[in-house]
């Protein structure tokens, strides 16, 4: 079998199938695995939602065990970052918000009104095309796929290696004993998961997985998501796309009229910047400060540099490329020559300040551009459908007015500064779990 046509099978029937990516078994035909996944669906579809939530809650506890297997194996891959998504309270709330009715509708028909019953049925097979940038983020859509009792096939990127299969291998071993002594087996819930890899030129595999999917989830850059979107699919198959987006932050002058307020905001903003070294589409790269504030926008930039310096001592930096180094060095030089720049001798962090409102391209690796605005319309002009989050510190009445206009231009979120990098519901403007179920009604 030529490498181009092979499908690497990395996780199947609760087992990680190889220690290394290179040695993972290959198949040219996925149909027997497909049939097996379909057969397992009945059991998963009939599992009580509360049991699934309890299972996830147990995972969250295992993840934070200091000497546990998850901390040992996955803490450097950012798993701690997602712990809250496994917690029962969080996931239950997210699920409730998403389906916007009683959670029992996921288990059975419930009374909608006097005359009608309604239920949310899993759509079937979800194939998730995961990106290489922050692979752990792909687990977000897997959690939501499982919570809605779907079969999940994860197509991972080569760079991710065995991270996801190893992680699933561990969670499949987790069991939870309910108060009634009933055992919820991780292996029952995870049996409907498969992890595969195939080459980007393997159009046969791409089309095969596209056609067996009831939902296609795509994470990644424009090329990656467009490649999925442009692959043939069956009528009725739905796409949930988490494509490339950018984020920034806005602060109005009422929020920075005291030094203590500035320092507090700077600490929060630094936290948003440092999370996953700005690799997420919800990471800020530019911050716009309203002009004519009491202490001035340049003062804010100076204080932000102090907060960045302090946080750099606590959070170690992830790897970055030599080209990214050059991009940061170029911007530092440019801002030293024409504006203001604050940075240490190393490339640990960079604050670049200019008294103008033009948005700058992301440099990543903890590089933030501090810009100014006179009129909120200057900011609105920077918003479009590719703007994911705008971190805000604004007076409430201003915020709501601004959010309405910005949302119309395509912006997805308006989190408070300090919470920009939290992954929440709705995401990218969607209640994702609602997209993963089909609503059926019985007139009773």
């Amino acid at each position, binding site marked *: 079998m030529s490498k181009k046509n092979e499908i690497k099978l990395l996780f199947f029937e609760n087992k990680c199938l190889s220690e290394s990516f290179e040695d993972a078994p290959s198949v040219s035909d996925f149909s027997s695995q497909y049939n097996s996944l379909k057969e397992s669906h009945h059991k998963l579809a009939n599992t009580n939602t509360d049991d699934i939530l309890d299972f996830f809650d147990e995972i969250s506890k295992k993840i934070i065990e200091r000497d546990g297997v998850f901390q040992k194996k996955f803490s450097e891959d950012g798993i701690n970052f997602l712990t809250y998504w496994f917690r029962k309270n969080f996931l239950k709330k997210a699920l409730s918000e998403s389906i916007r009715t009683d959670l029992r509708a996921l288990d059975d028909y419930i009374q909608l009104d006097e005359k009608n019953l309604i239920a949310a049925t899993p759509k079937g097979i979800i194939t998730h095309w995961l990106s290489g*940038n922050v692979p752990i983020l792909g687990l977000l859509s897997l959690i939501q796929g499982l919570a809605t009792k779907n079969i999940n096939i994860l197509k991972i990127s080569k760079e991710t290696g065995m991270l996801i299969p190893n992680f699933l291998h561990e969670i499949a071993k987790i069991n939870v004993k309910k108060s009634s002594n009933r055992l919820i087996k991780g292996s029952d819930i995870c049996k409907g998961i498969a992890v595969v890899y195939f080459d980007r030129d393997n159009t046969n595999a791409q089309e095969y997985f596209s056609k067996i999917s009831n939902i296609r989830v795509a994470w*990644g*850059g424009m090329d990656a998501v467009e490649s999925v979107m442009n692959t043939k699919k069956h009528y009725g198959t739905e796409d949930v796309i988490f494509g490339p987006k*950018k984020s920034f932050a806005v602060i109005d002058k009422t929020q920075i009229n005291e030094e203590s307020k500035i320092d507090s905001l700077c600490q929060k903003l630094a936290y948003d910047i440092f999370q996953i070294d*700005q690799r997420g589409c919800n*990471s800020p790269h530019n911050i716009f400060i309203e002009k004519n504030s009491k202490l001035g926008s340049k003062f804010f930039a100076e204080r932000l540099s102090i907060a960045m310096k302090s946080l750099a001592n606590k959070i170690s930096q992830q790897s970055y490329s030599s080209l*990214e180094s*050059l991009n940061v060095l170029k911007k530092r030089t440019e801002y030293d020559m*024409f504006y203001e720049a604050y940075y240490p001798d190393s490339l640990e962090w960079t604050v670049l300040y200019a008294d103008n409102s033009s948005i700058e391209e992301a440099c*990543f690796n903890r590089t933030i551009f501090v810009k100014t605005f006179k009129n909120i319309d200057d900011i609105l002009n920077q918003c479009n459908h590719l703007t994911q989050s705008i971190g805000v510190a604004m007076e409430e009445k201003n915020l709501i007015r601004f959010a309405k206009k910005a949302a119309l231009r395509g912006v997805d979120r308006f989190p408070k500064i300090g919470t920009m990098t939290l992954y929440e519901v709705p995401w990218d403007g969607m209640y994702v779990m609602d997209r993963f179920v089909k609503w059926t009604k019985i007139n009773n």
Partner: protein
Amino acid sequence: MNNLNNFFDSPPFDYNISEKDLNLIESLRINLQHQYNNCLPFKRLLEKRKFNFSNDFNLEDIPYIPVTIFKDYQLKSVKEELIVRKLTSSATSSQNPSQIFIDKETRVNQMKSLVWILSSFLGKKKMPYLIMDIDPNLKKGDFELSARGAAIRGFLVGASKSSFCMNEQLEIDYEKFYSLIKDYEKSNEKFILFGYTYIMYLYVAMKMKEKGEKLNLSNCIVMHIGGWKKLYDQKVSKEKFNKILVDVFGVEKDNILDVYGFTEQLGTVYISKGNGMKEIPKISKVLVRDPYTLEILEDNQEGLLQFLNPIPYSYPGLSVLTDDLGFKCTINNKEYFEITGRAKNSEVRGCGDILSESM
């Protein structure tokens, strides 16, 4: 005045490192003073980096400018009326080409430097050049070809005569090529086979190899310029490149000269013979910086290449950080370096990163 005759008065590779560094420091100090007084952005940069050229300093202390700055900003250090030429890079690595503004003084020093270095490899006697490329006059308006043509013309200072030996389809004009070779062999005249690295390999040597053509050019020097960027994808090593050229042309391996240079410090070229490393002339200092800590690396460690050179006078290009990766080495108190690749993005990238590219 940027008088650099103290360099040109003796051979380019006749130096010991400490003496070379001291000479460079003094020439760069004069240039730094000029840049400080005449280029406001550069003045701000020196002040921000707290670099005072009046004090004692080491070469590695001089602030550097990433070459990509010249793609976005028109930086000049002389009055507009003194500019005699605008150089534009071939823009293979980005959409914007570098724009370098040259005054007469810089131009003269560039030419002196080029002749000075080339003649130490080729000798003082001018030789005929067989240019393995399309004559730019045949395809006017072809931007890439005209950029190649401009670079080629720059090297013809050492040519007694020159002929382009490829047709408009970038195919060898065998009739012309073989006839000229025959003439030079007959008159026992040494000649130079000259062209871009990737053209010499992909469109000349490989095509001749495919056709089973073999020459025996014992009287020839092969000189190629323009770098290896277009051959990186094909994983062509210098050894493989030279082996093919030796097989096809029948030249001595040490008669294959690989010439490296860049627009932001034009005139200073770094030449390697055969499989050897590039020699660094006394007018230039090459430093290798760790791409992550930015610290100076020791010999044989790979990093980003920084070049210091007192020739750029009409623009602040005296200390530039390139996007080339390489390593340095010191042999018998002489400095050498080699290019290993270009700064690149990591495999694992952010979705926002990919967005900026596609936009």
